[in-house]
């Protein structure tokens, strides 16, 4: 492994052009992740056609680097403006934004930098040492029933965080699931709920929906505060967390690495669920759960460690099985296909150089988060000093371009602003935007795997319980739902 890693490193840093692409990926991912309104997906969508002119290793490496650094970059906007750069940063905003409001933005961003780097490096190391055995394990043990069970568990966890009551949490997730059914059904390709619009046959693209629900609705919330004279600019602060503050959360970091890696390795799941589960587990194991959501450093740490820990793991199903774990990894499949390659088991034998350049690049990209991120953070915090009257139209415009570029459809911009209005109204009424988005992302994956699983077990649900991983996940999901149902009936509302 070390020899291969060194060979990958030599290829990566032996050619000035490849170094240039690596540096561009690191800075581009961080920058686009950290600009409110656009995300790493916008950058990736713009760059996709250009990768045809690069070598396969350079193209895939560029996307892998953007994936690592962009996943971290999205935390910045989540923390500073309550606008997650990507869905995987949504739980980061739960505690990160309240920290900004309290004048602790520097601490939150500093923790995000460090924990993203730790999670990413740990994940890259495991990925390098164990991709092949883990891929074999996944082939043997993970099938549609397990993926459906994990989606079920993830949605149960998502409904328990965000939303003013558990009922509103569930309704949020169900709305996301319903939106995900728009478009063709995953088994028969029959058009559903397209209301006569042919553009809706492909479904609601989740980039515009996410931008609408997160970025646009947040702008509307701030606008409403501005109109009613209740807008207060976030407090500016560049104090980073001390070593001891971070050391106190070492268990949360280790736990989130495991959670993130496990979620990342499962095909189709990706970093979003990892972040929610990492956050959910932090809440579950905490002695004082009531502090979460009010600006607790552990919330930021858990979410950011888990989502970056999933980045390396997400490469395992992509490279070993050819199954993408999210939007960006799906674009990586397109990069492979542009160069007449197919990701899958054969790629390890046909293109080992490519694999090890990508592995080495991901390792160094995660390390770069630590060094470049710390320098970048000091600068990016000054975004808080820009008047929101300037920032708001800028964010709206960037979001419009981000929504349009991915498919070249004006409909996507309309969908984004509609999602913004719906998100604004739902947030005012106490519904959970992250819940809607997770439902939207996992809905299709859940349905597809449920259908495949049902066909596999000949519609005998009992067979699901003969599969240990599936059983554990379903029981965990049911227990989570029962616990929240119990609290819905027997817990008193907050006294204000």
């Amino acid at each position, binding site marked *: 492994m070390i020899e291969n890693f060194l060979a990958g490193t030599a290829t990566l840093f032996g050619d000035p052009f490849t170094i240039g692409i690596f540096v561009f990926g690191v800075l581009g991912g961080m920058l686009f992740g950290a600009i409110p309104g656009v995300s790493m997906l916008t950058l990736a969508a713009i760059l996709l056609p250009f990768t045809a002119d690069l070598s396969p290793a350079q193209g895939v490496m560029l996307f892998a680097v953007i994936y690592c650094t962009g996943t971290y970059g999205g935390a910045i906007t989540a923390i500073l403006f309550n606008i997650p750069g990507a869905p995987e940063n949504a739980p980061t905003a739960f505690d990160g934004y309240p920290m900004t409001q309290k004048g602790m933005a520097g601490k939150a961003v500093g923790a995000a930098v460090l924990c993203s780097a730790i999670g990413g490096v740990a994940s890259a190391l495991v990925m390098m040492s164990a991709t092949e055995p883990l891929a074999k394990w996944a082939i043997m043990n993970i099938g549609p029933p397990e993926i459906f069970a994990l989606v079920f568990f993830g949605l149960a966890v998502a409904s328990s965080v*965000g939303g003013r009551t558990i009922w509103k949490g569930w309704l949020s997730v169900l709305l996301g699931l319903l939106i995900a059914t728009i478009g063709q059904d995953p088994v028969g390709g029959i058009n559903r709920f397209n209301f006569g619009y042919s553009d809706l046959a492909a479904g609601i693209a989740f980039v515009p929906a996410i931008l609408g629900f997160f970025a646009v609705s947040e702008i509307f919330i701030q606008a409403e505060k501005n109109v009613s004279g209740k807008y207060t600019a976030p407090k500016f602060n560049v104090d980073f967390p001390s070593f001891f503050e971070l050391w106190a959360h070492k268990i949360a970091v280790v736990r989130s690495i495991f959670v993130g890696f496990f979620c990342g390795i499962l095909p189709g799941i990706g970093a979003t669920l990892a972040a929610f589960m990492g956050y959910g587990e932090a809440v579950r194991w905490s002695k004082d759960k009531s502090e979460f959501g009010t600006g607790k450093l552990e919330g930021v740490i858990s979410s950011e460690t888990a989502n970056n820990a999933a980045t390396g793991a997400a490469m395992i199903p992509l490279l070993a099985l050819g199954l993408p774990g999210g939007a960006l990894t799906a674009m990586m499949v397109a990069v492979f296909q542009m160069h007449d390659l197919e990701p899958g088991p054969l790629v390890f034998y046909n293109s080992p150089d490519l694999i090890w350049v990508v592995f080495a690049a991901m390792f160094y990209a995660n390390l770069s988060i630590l060094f470049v991120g710390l320098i970048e953070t000091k600068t990016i915090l000054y975004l808080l000093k820009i008047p929101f009257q300037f920032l708001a139209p800028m964010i709206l415009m960037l979001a419009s371009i981000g929504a*349009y570029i991915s498919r070249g459809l004006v409909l996507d911009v309309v969908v984004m602003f509609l999602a913004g209005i719906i998100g604004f109204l739902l947030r005012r009424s106490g519904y959970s935007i992250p819940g809607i988005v997770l439902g939207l992302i996992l809905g299709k994956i859940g349905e597809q795997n449920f259908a495949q699983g049902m066909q596999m077990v000949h519609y005998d649900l009992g067979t699901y319980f003969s599969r240990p991983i599936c059983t554990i996940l379903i029981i965990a999901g049911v227990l989570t739902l029962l616990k929240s149902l119990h609290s819905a009936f027997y817990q008193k509302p907050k006294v204000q």
Partner: protein
Amino acid sequence: MGKLSRPDIFEAVFWLLIAVIFFAVSFSFNQPIEIYKFGATGWPRVILFLMALVSLGNFYYAYSKGSKAQEGRVGAKENEEPIKYTSAGQYFKTGMVLILPLVYALSLKPVGFYSGTPIFIALIMIAWGERRVRFILTNTILIYAILIGLFMIVLNAPLPQGNMSPFYDISAFMLKTKTQFDQMF
């Protein structure tokens, strides 16, 4: 009426309406799929059934306990106190902020990005309550220049050009200028 408020009733009606309307629409694609017993409607109908059920739970919760946040809910703090409107002017201003972007999006096809964007940027600043003419003009030009510089010149991103004269001609002129600019270097 228990502890119900008007928004609680509105919310219940909203969710039930969604469930009923979507359920009715689901009959339009209720075709069997040979390889899948539950067909195309199975999954969405389960979601709609659960939505109706949970909305009733939500209604009952609001009836018995009011609409305050449940204790121990994580990430719900920001939504605890929605802003109360005291004048029609506030409704109008917020309405403008909500509607303007939608109007911009709908105008993208005929007007295009290049012509519509500066107007929208200025209007949204006005809707935000900004009244300093110099601030609006300077920042509109600055934001427009950043967007054009980044997406049109550096990243060469394809943006909507519009299909209505004179907007289409303006877009064509900008793209032609950009091509000439590229050829210079």
